[in-house]
């Protein structure tokens, strides 16, 4: 178990390495001299040179990379070119909002996916199954921002039931916070539930056709027990495995959803920073996003290995 865990951990290293290189590239690819941003536009050439030297910009690139990496691992991502605040403080300020949204979105997607997957698998090939299949296809085709806009149109503008944007942080008013969380979370859920639904349906149907279900029947086991322990327990595997993949895509959706609903999270920060050429912030948020995905995948894999030893042995060829 420890062996598997450390093996999995090691597998993430190359990915993280390349991602860190890409992040560094973003920083350095910024046109213009970073020292200029720090020193200010009116700095004299001598001041500029001094700042450059202090920032280590006269060193060869790989040295700069190592320095940057060292700083990054300590949580020091430098300063925002725009606001002057440290990047880490900016990110930490915006992080909670994104976490709330991402978690809420995943929960909605998971719940919807589970419900639709179960219902579709109950009578495969039937009318309900076909309807759900159509629904998932449509949901996959609709861009996140469009569904968000349509939801706002219906529930905010027309019906005026829910707010169309961020209202208040939980500490300032939990009721208002939740009511403003509903629409964006539902938007995310609507767009990301199909993978869950399809994987659960597929997994359940495949489990149901397996010989061990026939064995359960032949022993006279209670049908509900059979469903729980034989069909569901085995059939839910693909869906659980897909959590990591869905989470990755969902993060992309979070960036967009934050824009639609004016949600003050990391996604909005990232987008505005790109617009402002505030590359220090951009690369830090990118790194964080990838780190989150890698982490979630790792946790899902390890949790599965603990809970369900046989799955550890089946080839994880999905990676």
């Amino acid at each position, binding site marked *: 178990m420890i062996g598997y865990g450390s093996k999995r951990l090691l597998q993430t290293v190359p990915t993280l390495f390349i991602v860190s290189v890409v992040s560094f590239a973003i920083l350095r690819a910024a046109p213009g001299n970073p020292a200029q941003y720090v020193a200010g536009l009116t700095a004299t050439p001598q001041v500029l040179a001094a700042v450059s030297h202090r920032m280590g910009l006269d060193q060869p690139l790989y040295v700069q990379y190592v320095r940057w990496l060292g700083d990054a691992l300590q949580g020091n991502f430098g300063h925002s070119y725009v606001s002057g605040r440290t990047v880490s403080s900016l990110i930490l300020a915006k992080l909670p909002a994104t976490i709330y949204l991402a978690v809420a979105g995943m929960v909605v997607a998971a719940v919807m996916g589970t419900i639709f997957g179960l219902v579709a698998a109950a009578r495969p090939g039937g009318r309900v199954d076909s309807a759900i299949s159509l629904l998932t296809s449509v949901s996959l085709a609709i861009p996140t921002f*469009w569904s968000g806009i349509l939801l706002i149109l219906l529930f905010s503008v027309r019906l005026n039931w829910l707010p169309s944007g961020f209202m208040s942080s939980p500490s300032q008013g939990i009721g208002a916070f939740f009511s403003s969380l509903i629409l964006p979370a539902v938007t995310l859920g609507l767009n990301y539930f199909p993978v869950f639904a399809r994987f659960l349906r597929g997994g359940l149907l495949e489990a149901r056709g397996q010989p061990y279900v026939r064995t359960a029947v032949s022993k006279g086991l209670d049908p509900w027990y059979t469903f729980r322990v034989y069909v569901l327990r085995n059939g839910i595997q693909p869906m659980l495995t897909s959590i990591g993949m869905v989470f990755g895509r969902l993060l992309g959706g979070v960036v967009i959803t934050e824009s639609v609903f004016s949600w003050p999270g990391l996604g909005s920060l990232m987008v505005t920073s790109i617009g402002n050429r505030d590359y220090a912030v951009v690369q830090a948020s990118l790194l964080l996003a990838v780190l989150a*995905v890698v982490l979630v995948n790792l946790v899902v894999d390890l949790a599965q290995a603990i809970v369900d030893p046989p799955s550890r042995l089946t080839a994880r060829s999905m990676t």
Partner: protein
Amino acid sequence: MKMTSDSLTRPESAPLVDDFGAASGSVLSKMVAPMRRLVSSRKGKAAAAGLAVYVVIGLGWRLLPLPAPDYIDQTVRLRGPSAGHLLGTDEFGRDILSRIFDGIGITLGVSAISISVALVIGVSTGIFAAYSGGWVDAVLMRAYDALLAMPDMILAIAVAAIIGTGARDAIVALAVVGTPQFARIVRSSCLSELPKTYIEASVSLGGSRARIMFRHLLPNSVGPIAVQTAIFGAFSVLMLAGLSFLGLGVQPPAPSLGGMLSTARQYLATAPWYAVGPGLAIALLVLTLNALADCVRDITDRRGR
């Protein structure tokens, strides 16, 4: 594999047939029959028709009697659907419908180019990696895996951050996202073909590397490549729209479906119809491409591969 004197003297352009009946040969020759089968099902017909409609619109909308998409008329800002403007006007008084059509054309163009780039680079590196094996394969795949580990939208945004915004840069961003996908698919397809006897035969007949790769491995990967093309097609449309929505893709004043939705968001209370058209255009295109992907997948599965 029976090595008759016949096969030794066979002209090099004749296809070899392996024990599974898969024929090597030109890529195009393998595509004709499946194409016909593609449109035989109802879904296939609908999908192909849908795509055709989009392509026709994208290429030929200028022939329609519509107002020019960049014609600004501040006197008719944000009007609803009317006789002169079938879907209303935008915040500059420009006709929404013609802008949508123009946007479709741009979307198709950007997608097509990025698919092509991703396909060419991804497929060739995938075949190369599969055939070379060893550390070449390992290094390439690790690099691609790292790219694949990043959520696609976020990767696209990152690339846009590095190289800038605009349609051309969006193409690069999309190609960066798509190349690893193609490479992976092609590589696994090739890996399952490599152990087959006809490859071994070709090697012993003295076939060059390039020859083996392109005359034998490639044609037998056409199926998965086709499926991936359709899938990535849908992907690229959505991602381009997303980038444009965020202001990182096609830049104004060029019309973009995502960009129009971004503006529509601001005027939602006063001009709700603005949001309907562009979104529907995107959704239907993606739906069509996904349906196409399903049909292609059905066909390639049925070939027993």
